[in-house]
Protein backbone atom coordinates (compact mmCIF):
# COMPACT_ATOMS: atom_id res chain seq x y z
CA UNK A 1 0.00 0.00 0.00
CA UNK A 2 2.81 2.40 0.94
CA UNK A 3 4.45 1.80 -2.44
CA UNK A 4 1.23 2.54 -4.29
CA UNK A 5 0.61 5.74 -2.33
CA UNK A 6 4.19 6.87 -2.70
CA UNK A 7 4.18 6.29 -6.46
CA UNK A 8 0.82 7.96 -6.91
CA UNK A 9 2.14 10.99 -5.04
CA UNK A 10 5.08 11.13 -7.43
CA UNK A 11 2.84 10.96 -10.49
CA UNK A 12 0.62 13.66 -9.00
CA UNK A 13 3.65 15.87 -8.47
CA UNK A 14 5.06 15.30 -11.96
CA UNK A 15 1.72 15.85 -13.67
CA UNK A 16 1.36 19.21 -11.94
CA UNK A 17 4.92 20.46 -12.42
CA UNK A 18 5.97 20.00 -16.03
CA UNK A 19 7.83 23.31 -15.95
CA UNK A 20 10.10 22.02 -13.17
CA UNK A 21 10.76 18.85 -15.16
CA UNK A 22 11.57 20.94 -18.22
CA UNK A 23 14.15 22.85 -16.21
CA UNK A 24 15.66 19.58 -14.98
CA UNK A 25 16.04 18.36 -18.56
CA UNK A 26 17.57 21.64 -19.63
CA UNK A 27 19.92 21.78 -16.64
CA UNK A 28 21.11 18.29 -17.54
CA UNK A 29 22.05 19.60 -20.98
CA UNK A 30 19.19 17.93 -22.84
CA UNK A 31 17.35 19.52 -25.70
CA UNK A 32 13.59 19.33 -25.32
CA UNK A 33 10.99 19.21 -28.09
CA UNK A 34 7.44 20.18 -27.19
CA UNK A 35 4.85 17.86 -28.69
CA UNK A 36 1.41 19.24 -29.40
CA UNK A 37 -1.44 16.76 -29.28
CA UNK A 38 -1.95 14.29 -30.75
CA UNK A 39 -0.01 11.42 -32.42
CA UNK A 40 3.17 13.48 -32.61
CA UNK A 41 5.91 11.13 -33.89
CA UNK A 42 7.90 11.12 -30.66
CA UNK A 43 10.29 8.34 -31.76
CA UNK A 44 11.90 10.88 -34.11
CA UNK A 45 12.69 13.12 -31.14
CA UNK A 46 14.11 10.23 -29.15
CA UNK A 47 16.17 9.01 -32.09
CA UNK A 48 17.74 12.46 -32.26
CA UNK A 49 18.76 12.14 -28.57
CA UNK A 50 16.30 14.81 -27.47
CA UNK A 51 13.44 14.69 -24.97
CA UNK A 52 9.81 14.84 -26.16
CA UNK A 53 7.43 16.60 -23.76
CA UNK A 54 3.70 16.77 -24.34
CA UNK A 55 2.05 20.15 -24.05
CA UNK A 56 -1.58 20.19 -23.01
CA UNK A 57 -2.26 23.80 -22.10
CA UNK A 58 -3.57 24.10 -18.57
CA UNK A 59 -6.06 25.99 -16.45
CA UNK A 60 -5.53 29.66 -17.19
CA UNK A 61 -7.54 32.68 -18.16
CA UNK A 62 -5.73 33.78 -21.33
CA UNK A 63 -4.83 37.46 -21.24
CA UNK A 64 -2.71 37.94 -24.36
CA UNK A 65 -3.45 34.92 -26.58
CA UNK A 66 -6.47 36.83 -27.85
CA UNK A 67 -4.09 38.95 -29.91
CA UNK A 68 -3.77 36.04 -32.33
CA UNK A 69 -6.45 33.51 -31.34
CA UNK A 70 -10.13 34.51 -31.20
CA UNK A 71 -12.23 33.71 -28.15
CA UNK A 72 -13.86 30.83 -30.02
CA UNK A 73 -10.55 28.98 -30.36
CA UNK A 74 -10.24 25.48 -28.91
CA UNK A 75 -9.68 26.03 -25.20
CA UNK A 76 -6.61 23.79 -25.07
CA UNK A 77 -4.80 25.40 -28.00
CA UNK A 78 -5.65 28.87 -26.73
CA UNK A 79 -4.05 28.15 -23.38
CA UNK A 80 -1.04 26.58 -25.15
CA UNK A 81 -0.63 29.81 -27.08
CA UNK A 82 -0.99 31.86 -23.89
CA UNK A 83 1.69 29.78 -22.18
CA UNK A 84 3.90 30.06 -25.24
CA UNK A 85 3.50 33.84 -25.37
CA UNK A 86 4.11 34.25 -21.64
CA UNK A 87 7.29 32.19 -21.58
CA UNK A 88 6.06 29.04 -19.79
CA UNK A 89 7.67 26.86 -22.45
CA UNK A 90 10.89 28.87 -22.61
CA UNK A 91 13.88 26.64 -23.19
CA UNK A 92 12.29 24.09 -25.50
CA UNK A 93 14.08 23.90 -28.82
CA UNK A 94 11.01 23.52 -31.00
CA UNK A 95 7.36 22.51 -30.95
CA UNK A 96 6.07 19.76 -33.23
CA UNK A 97 2.59 20.64 -34.39
CA UNK A 98 0.54 18.06 -36.30
CA UNK A 99 -2.06 19.89 -38.38
CA UNK A 100 -4.92 17.55 -37.55
CA UNK A 101 -7.79 20.02 -37.46
CA UNK A 102 -8.70 23.47 -38.76
CA UNK A 103 -7.78 25.09 -35.46
CA UNK A 104 -4.23 23.78 -35.80
CA UNK A 105 -4.02 25.38 -39.25
CA UNK A 106 -4.73 28.74 -37.66
CA UNK A 107 -2.64 27.99 -34.60
CA UNK A 108 0.38 27.47 -36.81
CA UNK A 109 0.17 31.11 -37.89
CA UNK A 110 -0.72 32.35 -34.42
CA UNK A 111 2.24 30.52 -32.90
CA UNK A 112 4.67 31.92 -35.45
CA UNK A 113 3.39 35.42 -34.74
CA UNK A 114 3.17 35.16 -30.96
CA UNK A 115 5.89 32.75 -29.87
CA UNK A 116 8.95 33.84 -31.76
CA UNK A 117 11.46 31.98 -29.58
CA UNK A 118 10.03 28.48 -30.15
CA UNK A 119 10.16 27.18 -33.69
CA UNK A 120 7.07 25.26 -34.80
CA UNK A 121 7.68 22.10 -36.80
CA UNK A 122 4.47 21.49 -38.66
CA UNK A 123 3.35 18.53 -40.68
CA UNK A 124 0.07 17.31 -42.04
CA UNK A 125 -1.70 14.03 -41.42
CA UNK A 126 -3.62 13.13 -44.61
CA UNK A 127 -7.31 12.66 -43.85
CA UNK A 128 -8.16 10.61 -46.93
CA UNK A 129 -6.55 7.64 -45.27
CA UNK A 130 -7.69 5.06 -47.82
CA UNK A 131 -6.04 6.83 -50.76
CA UNK A 132 -2.93 4.89 -51.84
CA UNK A 133 -1.04 8.16 -52.13
CA UNK A 134 -1.67 9.04 -48.50
CA UNK A 135 1.09 6.74 -47.25
CA UNK A 136 3.70 8.25 -49.56
CA UNK A 137 2.52 11.75 -48.73
CA UNK A 138 2.77 11.14 -44.99
CA UNK A 139 6.22 9.58 -45.31
CA UNK A 140 7.40 12.76 -47.02
CA UNK A 141 5.77 14.89 -44.31
CA UNK A 142 7.49 12.88 -41.57
CA UNK A 143 10.80 13.28 -43.40
CA UNK A 144 10.42 17.05 -43.11
CA UNK A 145 10.00 16.67 -39.36
CA UNK A 146 13.05 14.41 -39.30
CA UNK A 147 15.12 17.00 -41.18
CA UNK A 148 14.08 19.78 -38.80
CA UNK A 149 14.95 17.66 -35.76
CA UNK A 150 18.31 16.66 -37.24
CA UNK A 151 19.07 20.33 -37.79
CA UNK A 152 18.17 21.20 -34.17
CA UNK A 153 19.99 18.26 -32.60
CA UNK A 154 22.97 18.31 -34.98
CA UNK A 155 22.60 14.53 -35.18
CA UNK A 156 21.57 12.30 -38.03
CA UNK A 157 18.50 10.17 -37.28
CA UNK A 158 19.42 6.71 -38.50
CA UNK A 159 16.98 3.97 -39.31
CA UNK A 160 18.46 1.88 -36.50
CA UNK A 161 18.09 4.64 -33.91
CA UNK A 162 14.54 5.22 -35.04
CA UNK A 163 13.70 1.51 -34.86
CA UNK A 164 15.03 1.45 -31.30
CA UNK A 165 12.98 4.50 -30.39
CA UNK A 166 9.87 2.94 -31.91
CA UNK A 167 10.46 -0.23 -29.90
CA UNK A 168 10.83 1.87 -26.76
CA UNK A 169 7.58 3.74 -27.43
CA UNK A 170 5.74 0.51 -28.17
CA UNK A 171 7.01 -0.88 -24.89
CA UNK A 172 5.74 2.23 -23.12
CA UNK A 173 2.36 1.74 -24.80
CA UNK A 174 2.18 -1.80 -23.45
CA UNK A 175 3.14 -0.64 -19.97
CA UNK A 176 0.46 2.03 -20.00
CA UNK A 177 -2.18 -0.43 -21.18
CA UNK A 178 -1.13 -2.90 -18.48
CA UNK A 179 -1.47 -0.18 -15.85
CA UNK A 180 -5.00 0.65 -17.04
CA UNK A 181 -5.98 -3.01 -16.73
CA UNK A 182 -4.41 -3.34 -13.30
CA UNK A 183 -6.06 -0.12 -12.13
CA UNK A 184 -9.49 -1.60 -12.79
CA UNK A 185 -8.83 -4.29 -10.21
CA UNK A 186 -8.01 -1.62 -7.63
CA UNK A 187 -10.59 1.10 -8.06
CA UNK A 188 -10.45 1.74 -4.31
CA UNK A 189 -6.80 2.76 -4.64
CA UNK A 190 -6.76 4.27 -8.13
CA UNK A 191 -9.29 7.06 -7.96
CA UNK A 192 -10.13 8.96 -11.17
CA UNK A 193 -7.65 11.75 -10.42
CA UNK A 194 -4.90 9.24 -9.56
CA UNK A 195 -5.41 7.46 -12.88
CA UNK A 196 -5.25 10.79 -14.68
CA UNK A 197 -2.05 11.84 -12.91
CA UNK A 198 -0.31 8.65 -14.06
CA UNK A 199 -1.48 9.12 -17.64
CA UNK A 200 -0.60 12.81 -17.73
CA UNK A 201 2.81 12.41 -16.08
CA UNK A 202 3.68 9.90 -18.82
CA UNK A 203 3.33 12.67 -21.40
CA UNK A 204 6.12 14.63 -19.68
CA UNK A 205 8.49 11.86 -18.67
CA UNK A 206 11.10 10.17 -20.82
CA UNK A 207 9.67 6.85 -22.04
CA UNK A 208 12.32 4.92 -20.09
CA UNK A 209 11.28 6.68 -16.88
CA UNK A 210 7.60 6.12 -17.65
CA UNK A 211 8.25 2.41 -18.16
CA UNK A 212 10.18 2.21 -14.90
CA UNK A 213 7.69 4.13 -12.76
CA UNK A 214 4.46 2.84 -14.25
CA UNK A 215 5.70 -0.76 -14.19
CA UNK A 216 6.58 -0.31 -10.51
CA UNK A 217 3.08 0.98 -9.84
CA UNK A 218 1.45 -1.90 -11.69
CA UNK A 219 3.57 -4.37 -9.73
CA UNK A 220 2.71 -2.66 -6.46
CA UNK A 221 -0.97 -2.86 -7.34
CA UNK A 222 -0.66 -6.58 -8.04
CA UNK A 223 0.38 -7.07 -4.42
CA UNK A 224 -2.85 -5.48 -3.19
CA UNK A 225 -6.15 -7.34 -2.80
CA UNK A 226 -8.54 -7.03 -5.74
CA UNK A 227 -11.32 -4.56 -5.05
CA UNK A 228 -14.95 -5.50 -5.70
CA UNK A 229 -16.13 -2.02 -6.69
CA UNK A 230 -19.76 -1.46 -5.76
CA UNK A 231 -20.13 2.01 -7.23
CA UNK A 232 -20.85 2.98 -10.81
CA UNK A 233 -18.25 2.82 -13.56
CA UNK A 234 -17.67 5.10 -16.52
CA UNK A 235 -15.56 5.45 -19.64
CA UNK A 236 -14.20 8.91 -20.45
CA UNK A 237 -13.88 10.04 -24.06
CA UNK A 238 -12.65 13.34 -25.51
CA UNK A 239 -9.44 15.34 -25.53
CA UNK A 240 -8.76 15.74 -21.80
CA UNK A 241 -10.63 15.45 -18.53
CA UNK A 242 -9.22 18.09 -16.21
CA UNK A 243 -8.82 19.72 -13.74
CA UNK A 244 -8.70 17.50 -10.65
CA UNK A 245 -11.87 19.11 -9.31
CA UNK A 246 -13.88 17.53 -12.13
CA UNK A 247 -12.33 14.13 -11.56
CA UNK A 248 -13.00 14.62 -7.86
CA UNK A 249 -16.72 14.90 -8.62
CA UNK A 250 -16.63 11.33 -9.93
CA UNK A 251 -14.86 10.11 -6.79
CA UNK A 252 -17.16 12.08 -4.48
CA UNK A 253 -20.15 10.41 -6.10
CA UNK A 254 -18.65 6.92 -5.89
CA UNK A 255 -18.11 6.72 -9.65
CA UNK A 256 -14.94 5.02 -10.95
CA UNK A 257 -13.18 5.58 -14.27
CA UNK A 258 -12.53 2.14 -15.78
CA UNK A 259 -11.31 3.15 -19.20
CA UNK A 260 -10.71 6.14 -21.38
CA UNK A 261 -10.49 7.32 -24.93
CA UNK A 262 -8.95 10.67 -24.05
CA UNK A 263 -6.39 12.14 -26.42
CA UNK A 264 -4.25 13.05 -23.43
CA UNK A 265 -4.47 9.55 -22.06
CA UNK A 266 -5.17 6.15 -23.66
CA UNK A 267 -5.66 7.33 -27.25
CA UNK A 268 -1.90 7.71 -27.55
CA UNK A 269 -1.14 4.29 -26.21
CA UNK A 270 -3.74 1.98 -27.69
CA UNK A 271 -2.14 1.59 -31.14
CA UNK A 272 1.48 0.53 -31.51
CA UNK A 273 3.80 1.54 -34.32
CA UNK A 274 3.43 -1.41 -36.72
CA UNK A 275 6.19 -3.42 -38.36
CA UNK A 276 7.14 -1.94 -41.74
CA UNK A 277 9.85 -1.85 -44.38
CA UNK A 278 11.51 1.09 -42.67
CA UNK A 279 11.20 2.98 -39.43
CA UNK A 280 9.84 6.04 -41.21
CA UNK A 281 7.20 3.90 -42.89
CA UNK A 282 6.27 2.47 -39.48
CA UNK A 283 5.62 6.00 -38.19
CA UNK A 284 3.42 6.67 -41.21
CA UNK A 285 1.49 3.41 -41.01
CA UNK A 286 0.66 4.13 -37.39
CA UNK A 287 -1.66 6.91 -38.55
CA UNK A 288 -3.57 4.53 -40.82
CA UNK A 289 -4.13 2.10 -37.96
CA UNK A 290 -5.84 4.77 -35.82
CA UNK A 291 -9.56 4.11 -35.38
CA UNK A 292 -12.42 5.70 -33.52
CA UNK A 293 -10.70 9.05 -33.17
CA UNK A 294 -12.15 12.49 -33.86
CA UNK A 295 -8.89 13.66 -35.40
CA UNK A 296 -8.73 10.85 -37.97
CA UNK A 297 -11.39 10.75 -40.69
CA UNK A 298 -13.41 7.55 -40.89
CA UNK A 299 -16.17 6.84 -43.41
CA UNK A 300 -17.97 4.86 -40.73
CA UNK A 301 -19.79 7.33 -38.48
CA UNK A 302 -20.30 4.72 -35.81
CA UNK A 303 -16.65 3.62 -35.52
CA UNK A 304 -15.90 5.63 -32.41
CA UNK A 305 -19.20 4.78 -30.77
CA UNK A 306 -18.72 1.08 -31.45
CA UNK A 307 -15.22 1.21 -30.04
CA UNK A 308 -16.54 2.92 -26.89
CA UNK A 309 -19.35 0.40 -26.53
CA UNK A 310 -16.82 -2.43 -26.68
CA UNK A 311 -14.54 -0.67 -24.21
CA UNK A 312 -17.48 -0.09 -21.85
CA UNK A 313 -18.73 -3.67 -22.08
CA UNK A 314 -15.24 -5.14 -21.67
CA UNK A 315 -14.67 -3.08 -18.54
CA UNK A 316 -18.17 -3.31 -17.09
CA UNK A 317 -18.87 0.41 -17.44
CA UNK A 318 -22.41 1.77 -17.05
CA UNK A 319 -21.91 4.98 -18.97
CA UNK A 320 -19.77 6.84 -21.50
CA UNK A 321 -18.93 10.40 -20.48
CA UNK A 322 -18.08 12.76 -23.33
CA UNK A 323 -15.55 15.30 -22.07
CA UNK A 324 -16.16 18.11 -24.53
CA UNK A 325 -13.15 20.37 -24.92
CA UNK A 326 -14.53 23.90 -25.18
CA UNK A 327 -14.73 24.96 -28.84
CA UNK A 328 -13.16 21.75 -30.18
CA UNK A 329 -15.22 21.39 -33.31
CA UNK A 330 -14.05 17.92 -34.31
CA UNK A 331 -15.23 16.58 -30.97
CA UNK A 332 -18.51 18.48 -31.31
CA UNK A 333 -19.12 16.87 -34.71
CA UNK A 334 -18.48 13.42 -33.29
CA UNK A 335 -20.77 13.90 -30.31
CA UNK A 336 -24.21 13.15 -31.86
CA UNK A 337 -23.16 9.93 -33.56
CA UNK A 338 -21.22 8.75 -30.50
CA UNK A 339 -24.21 9.37 -28.21
CA UNK A 340 -26.54 7.67 -30.69
CA UNK A 341 -24.36 4.57 -31.02
CA UNK A 342 -23.71 4.32 -27.31
CA UNK A 343 -27.35 4.74 -26.26
CA UNK A 344 -28.54 2.27 -28.90
CA UNK A 345 -26.22 -0.23 -27.24
CA UNK A 346 -28.10 0.31 -23.98
CA UNK A 347 -25.48 2.43 -22.26
CA UNK A 348 -26.05 5.80 -20.66
CA UNK A 349 -24.04 8.74 -21.88
CA UNK A 350 -23.73 12.41 -21.07
CA UNK A 351 -21.30 15.19 -21.81
CA UNK A 352 -19.38 17.53 -19.55
CA UNK A 353 -17.77 20.77 -20.62
CA UNK A 354 -13.97 20.95 -20.32
CA UNK A 355 -12.84 24.56 -20.39
CA UNK A 356 -9.26 25.45 -19.51
CA UNK A 357 -10.12 29.13 -19.20
CA UNK A 358 -12.34 28.81 -16.15
CA UNK A 359 -12.44 26.92 -12.89
CA UNK A 360 -16.26 26.97 -12.81
CA UNK A 361 -17.45 23.39 -13.25
CA UNK A 362 -20.70 23.26 -11.31
CA UNK A 363 -22.65 21.94 -14.27
CA UNK A 364 -20.30 18.96 -14.57
CA UNK A 365 -20.95 18.21 -10.90
CA UNK A 366 -24.71 18.33 -11.47
CA UNK A 367 -24.48 15.89 -14.35
CA UNK A 368 -22.13 13.47 -12.60
CA UNK A 369 -24.24 13.61 -9.45
CA UNK A 370 -27.44 13.00 -11.45
CA UNK A 371 -25.85 9.99 -13.11
CA UNK A 372 -24.78 8.62 -9.74
CA UNK A 373 -28.23 9.17 -8.21
CA UNK A 374 -30.12 7.18 -10.83
Amino acid at each position, binding site marked *: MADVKNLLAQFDDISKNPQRLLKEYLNAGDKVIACFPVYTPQPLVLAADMVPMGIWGGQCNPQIAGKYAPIFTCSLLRSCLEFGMTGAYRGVSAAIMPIICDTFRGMNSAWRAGVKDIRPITFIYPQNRKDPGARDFLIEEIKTVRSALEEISGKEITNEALQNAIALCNKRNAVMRAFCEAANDHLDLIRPADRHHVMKAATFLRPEKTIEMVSALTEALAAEPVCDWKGKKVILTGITCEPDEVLGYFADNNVAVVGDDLAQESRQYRSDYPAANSAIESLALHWFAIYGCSTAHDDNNTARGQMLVKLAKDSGADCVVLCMMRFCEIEEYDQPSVIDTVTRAGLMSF*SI*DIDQSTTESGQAL*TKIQAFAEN
Partner: protein
Amino acid sequence: MFAAGIDIGSTASKAVILAADGGIAAKAIVPIGTGTVGPARVFAQALEKAGITRDDIQWITATGYGRFSFEGINDQKSELSCHARGIAHLLPATRTIVDIGGQDIKVMRINGKGMLLNFVMNDKCAAGTGRFLDTMAKVLDVEVTDLSDLSFQADEAAEISSTCTVFAESEVISKLAANIRLENIVSGIHKSVARRVASLVQRCGIQPEVAMSGGVALNKGLVHSLEEEIKHPIQVHEDCQLAGALGAALYALGSMRSA
Protein backbone atom coordinates in the same frame (compact mmCIF):
# COMPACT_ATOMS: atom_id res chain seq x y z
CA MET B 1 -43.81 15.17 10.90
CA PHE B 2 -43.16 16.74 7.51
CA ALA B 3 -40.60 16.55 4.69
CA ALA B 4 -39.46 19.58 2.71
CA GLY B 5 -37.87 20.13 -0.66
CA ILE B 6 -36.28 23.42 -1.61
CA ASP B 7 -35.19 24.21 -5.16
CA ILE B 8 -32.69 27.08 -5.21
CA GLY B 9 -32.35 28.16 -8.81
CA SER B 10 -30.39 30.98 -10.38
CA THR B 11 -33.44 33.22 -10.72
CA ALA B 12 -36.08 31.81 -8.35
CA SER B 13 -36.46 29.80 -5.14
CA LYS B 14 -39.19 27.20 -4.74
CA ALA B 15 -40.27 25.10 -1.77
CA VAL B 16 -42.70 22.23 -1.22
CA ILE B 17 -43.63 20.70 2.13
CA LEU B 18 -45.12 17.22 2.22
CA ALA B 19 -47.07 15.64 5.05
CA ALA B 20 -46.08 12.18 6.24
CA ASP B 21 -48.76 10.64 4.02
CA GLY B 22 -47.27 12.34 0.92
CA GLY B 23 -49.92 15.02 0.56
CA ILE B 24 -48.77 18.54 -0.28
CA ALA B 25 -48.97 20.66 2.87
CA ALA B 26 -47.60 23.84 1.30
CA LYS B 27 -45.86 25.23 -1.73
CA ALA B 28 -44.18 28.58 -2.32
CA ILE B 29 -42.25 30.46 -4.98
CA VAL B 30 -40.04 33.53 -4.54
CA PRO B 31 -38.71 35.15 -7.72
CA ILE B 32 -35.10 35.51 -6.53
CA GLY B 33 -32.59 32.72 -6.40
CA THR B 34 -29.24 31.67 -5.03
CA GLY B 35 -27.08 34.21 -3.26
CA THR B 36 -30.11 36.25 -2.17
CA VAL B 37 -32.64 36.10 0.68
CA GLY B 38 -34.88 34.13 -1.70
CA PRO B 39 -34.16 30.62 -0.35
CA ALA B 40 -34.72 31.60 3.29
CA ARG B 41 -37.80 33.58 2.37
CA VAL B 42 -39.41 30.82 0.33
CA PHE B 43 -38.81 28.31 3.09
CA ALA B 44 -40.33 30.65 5.67
CA GLN B 45 -43.35 31.22 3.41
CA ALA B 46 -43.87 27.49 2.94
CA LEU B 47 -43.70 26.90 6.71
CA GLU B 48 -46.21 29.67 7.29
CA LYS B 49 -48.61 28.31 4.66
CA ALA B 50 -48.38 24.83 6.19
CA GLY B 51 -48.94 26.30 9.63
CA ILE B 52 -45.90 24.57 11.08
CA THR B 53 -42.43 25.49 12.36
CA ARG B 54 -38.96 24.37 11.35
CA ASP B 55 -39.04 21.86 14.22
CA ASP B 56 -41.92 20.04 12.54
CA ILE B 57 -39.75 19.27 9.51
CA GLN B 58 -37.91 15.98 9.92
CA TRP B 59 -36.01 16.03 6.64
CA ILE B 60 -35.03 18.78 4.18
CA THR B 61 -33.58 18.04 0.76
CA ALA B 62 -32.16 20.87 -1.30
CA THR B 63 -31.71 20.95 -5.05
CA GLY B 64 -30.87 23.46 -7.77
CA TYR B 65 -27.87 25.61 -8.50
CA GLY B 66 -27.68 26.85 -4.90
CA ARG B 67 -28.27 23.47 -3.24
CA PHE B 68 -24.95 23.49 -1.42
CA SER B 69 -25.43 26.87 0.20
CA PHE B 70 -28.67 26.48 2.19
CA GLU B 71 -28.03 25.91 5.86
CA GLY B 72 -29.79 23.27 7.89
CA ILE B 73 -30.55 20.79 5.14
CA ASN B 74 -30.25 17.04 5.64
CA ASP B 75 -29.02 16.31 2.13
CA GLN B 76 -28.96 17.59 -1.42
CA LYS B 77 -29.83 16.10 -4.80
CA SER B 78 -29.09 17.18 -8.34
CA GLU B 79 -31.81 19.19 -10.05
CA LEU B 80 -31.91 16.64 -12.87
CA SER B 81 -32.96 13.88 -10.50
CA CYS B 82 -35.45 16.13 -8.70
CA HIS B 83 -37.15 17.41 -11.85
CA ALA B 84 -37.44 13.83 -13.09
CA ARG B 85 -38.98 12.68 -9.82
CA GLY B 86 -41.27 15.70 -9.57
CA ILE B 87 -42.65 15.49 -13.09
CA ALA B 88 -43.12 11.73 -12.82
CA HIS B 89 -45.30 12.46 -9.78
CA LEU B 90 -47.28 15.26 -11.45
CA LEU B 91 -47.61 13.71 -14.92
CA PRO B 92 -46.95 9.96 -14.57
CA ALA B 93 -47.15 9.19 -18.32
CA THR B 94 -44.18 11.49 -19.04
CA ARG B 95 -41.12 9.89 -20.61
CA THR B 96 -39.35 13.03 -21.91
CA ILE B 97 -38.94 16.20 -19.87
CA VAL B 98 -37.82 19.61 -21.08
CA ASP B 99 -36.80 22.03 -18.36
CA ILE B 100 -35.81 25.55 -19.34
CA GLY B 101 -34.21 27.06 -16.30
CA GLY B 102 -32.80 30.48 -15.59
CA GLN B 103 -29.39 29.64 -16.99
CA ASP B 104 -29.58 26.18 -18.46
CA ILE B 105 -31.71 23.82 -20.50
CA LYS B 106 -32.20 20.23 -19.47
CA VAL B 107 -33.74 17.46 -21.53
CA MET B 108 -34.32 14.22 -19.67
CA ARG B 109 -35.65 10.83 -20.62
CA ILE B 110 -37.16 8.96 -17.69
CA ASN B 111 -38.81 5.65 -16.94
CA GLY B 112 -42.18 5.13 -15.26
CA LYS B 113 -40.61 5.46 -11.82
CA GLY B 114 -39.08 8.83 -12.53
CA MET B 115 -35.56 7.47 -12.83
CA LEU B 116 -33.28 9.12 -15.38
CA LEU B 117 -32.48 7.04 -18.44
CA ASN B 118 -30.56 9.76 -20.23
CA PHE B 119 -30.17 13.51 -20.20
CA VAL B 120 -28.67 16.38 -22.16
CA MET B 121 -27.91 19.88 -20.93
CA ASN B 122 -26.70 22.96 -22.73
CA ASP B 123 -23.19 23.95 -21.78
CA LYS B 124 -22.44 27.36 -20.36
CA CYS B 125 -24.38 29.44 -22.83
CA ALA B 126 -27.39 31.56 -22.02
CA ALA B 127 -28.94 31.23 -25.48
CA GLY B 128 -32.32 29.54 -25.21
CA THR B 129 -32.55 29.83 -21.44
CA GLY B 130 -34.83 31.79 -19.14
CA ARG B 131 -32.11 34.41 -18.91
CA PHE B 132 -32.31 34.83 -22.68
CA LEU B 133 -36.05 35.57 -22.41
CA ASP B 134 -35.44 38.01 -19.53
CA THR B 135 -32.85 39.85 -21.61
CA MET B 136 -35.12 40.03 -24.66
CA ALA B 137 -38.07 41.26 -22.58
CA LYS B 138 -35.87 44.00 -21.19
CA VAL B 139 -34.76 45.09 -24.65
CA LEU B 140 -38.40 45.12 -25.81
CA ASP B 141 -39.46 46.98 -22.65
CA VAL B 142 -42.16 44.45 -21.81
CA GLU B 143 -42.70 42.16 -18.84
CA VAL B 144 -41.44 38.63 -19.36
CA THR B 145 -44.87 37.39 -18.31
CA ASP B 146 -46.40 39.27 -21.27
CA LEU B 147 -44.29 37.50 -23.88
CA SER B 148 -46.74 34.63 -24.25
CA ASP B 149 -49.79 36.77 -25.09
CA LEU B 150 -47.75 38.99 -27.38
CA SER B 151 -46.50 36.04 -29.41
CA PHE B 152 -50.03 34.82 -30.07
CA GLN B 153 -50.83 38.22 -31.63
CA ALA B 154 -48.03 37.85 -34.22
CA ASP B 155 -48.88 37.46 -37.91
CA GLU B 156 -45.42 36.06 -38.66
CA ALA B 157 -42.26 35.27 -36.73
CA ALA B 158 -39.30 37.59 -37.23
CA GLU B 159 -36.03 35.75 -37.84
CA ILE B 160 -33.87 35.86 -34.70
CA SER B 161 -30.50 34.16 -34.26
CA SER B 162 -30.50 31.13 -32.01
CA THR B 163 -26.76 31.26 -31.53
CA CYS B 164 -25.96 33.77 -28.85
CA THR B 165 -27.84 35.98 -26.40
CA VAL B 166 -25.64 38.97 -27.09
CA PHE B 167 -25.95 38.65 -30.88
CA ALA B 168 -29.68 38.07 -30.58
CA GLU B 169 -30.04 41.19 -28.45
CA SER B 170 -28.39 43.23 -31.22
CA GLU B 171 -30.67 41.58 -33.75
CA VAL B 172 -33.78 42.47 -31.75
CA ILE B 173 -32.66 46.10 -31.52
CA SER B 174 -32.16 46.06 -35.31
CA LYS B 175 -35.66 44.66 -35.81
CA LEU B 176 -37.10 47.38 -33.58
CA ALA B 177 -35.20 50.01 -35.57
CA ALA B 178 -36.65 48.50 -38.76
CA ASN B 179 -40.19 48.99 -37.34
CA ILE B 180 -40.96 45.28 -37.31
CA ARG B 181 -44.00 44.58 -35.14
CA LEU B 182 -43.18 43.88 -31.51
CA GLU B 183 -45.46 40.83 -31.54
CA ASN B 184 -43.60 39.37 -34.52
CA ILE B 185 -40.27 39.92 -32.79
CA VAL B 186 -41.55 38.13 -29.67
CA SER B 187 -42.77 35.25 -31.82
CA GLY B 188 -39.33 35.15 -33.46
CA ILE B 189 -37.66 35.07 -30.05
CA HIS B 190 -39.80 32.11 -29.04
CA LYS B 191 -38.98 30.34 -32.28
CA SER B 192 -35.29 31.02 -31.68
CA VAL B 193 -35.46 29.50 -28.19
CA ALA B 194 -37.57 26.59 -29.48
CA ARG B 195 -35.05 25.74 -32.19
CA ARG B 196 -32.22 25.72 -29.73
CA VAL B 197 -34.13 23.56 -27.25
CA ALA B 198 -35.37 21.26 -30.04
CA SER B 199 -31.81 20.46 -31.09
CA LEU B 200 -31.10 19.28 -27.55
CA VAL B 201 -34.37 17.32 -27.50
CA GLN B 202 -33.39 15.59 -30.74
CA ARG B 203 -29.96 14.83 -29.30
CA CYS B 204 -31.47 13.23 -26.20
CA GLY B 205 -34.21 11.44 -28.15
CA ILE B 206 -37.97 11.90 -27.81
CA GLN B 207 -40.24 9.35 -26.23
CA PRO B 208 -43.87 10.39 -25.64
CA GLU B 209 -45.32 11.80 -23.57
CA VAL B 210 -43.33 15.00 -23.45
CA ALA B 211 -43.71 17.43 -20.54
CA MET B 212 -42.13 20.72 -19.58
CA SER B 213 -41.04 21.72 -16.10
CA GLY B 214 -39.74 24.99 -14.73
CA GLY B 215 -41.20 28.48 -14.81
CA VAL B 216 -40.62 29.03 -18.52
CA ALA B 217 -43.22 26.30 -19.16
CA LEU B 218 -45.86 28.85 -18.08
CA ASN B 219 -45.11 30.76 -21.30
CA LYS B 220 -47.73 29.15 -23.56
CA GLY B 221 -46.39 30.91 -26.63
CA LEU B 222 -43.00 29.34 -26.16
CA VAL B 223 -44.51 25.92 -25.44
CA HIS B 224 -46.48 26.23 -28.70
CA SER B 225 -43.31 27.10 -30.65
CA LEU B 226 -41.49 24.15 -29.11
CA GLU B 227 -44.36 21.80 -29.96
CA GLU B 228 -44.04 22.92 -33.57
CA GLU B 229 -40.28 22.36 -33.60
CA ILE B 230 -40.29 18.91 -31.99
CA LYS B 231 -43.59 17.90 -33.63
CA HIS B 232 -44.96 16.49 -30.39
CA PRO B 233 -47.60 17.81 -27.99
CA ILE B 234 -46.17 19.01 -24.68
CA GLN B 235 -47.92 18.53 -21.32
CA VAL B 236 -47.61 21.34 -18.80
CA HIS B 237 -48.79 20.89 -15.22
CA GLU B 238 -50.00 23.94 -13.30
CA ASP B 239 -47.25 23.26 -10.74
CA CYS B 240 -44.55 22.92 -13.41
CA GLN B 241 -42.40 25.56 -11.72
CA LEU B 242 -42.43 23.52 -8.51
CA ALA B 243 -41.39 20.23 -10.11
CA GLY B 244 -37.80 20.42 -8.84
CA ALA B 245 -38.84 21.33 -5.29
CA LEU B 246 -41.51 18.62 -5.34
CA GLY B 247 -38.95 16.06 -6.49
CA ALA B 248 -36.65 17.13 -3.67
CA ALA B 249 -39.53 16.86 -1.20
CA LEU B 250 -40.30 13.36 -2.45
CA TYR B 251 -36.66 12.39 -1.91
CA ALA B 252 -36.88 13.95 1.56
CA LEU B 253 -40.04 11.99 2.30
CA GLY B 254 -38.33 8.76 1.28
CA SER B 255 -35.36 9.55 3.51
CA MET B 256 -37.69 10.48 6.38
CA ARG B 257 -39.53 7.20 6.12
CA SER B 258 -36.37 5.12 6.04
CA ALA B 259 -34.62 7.12 8.76
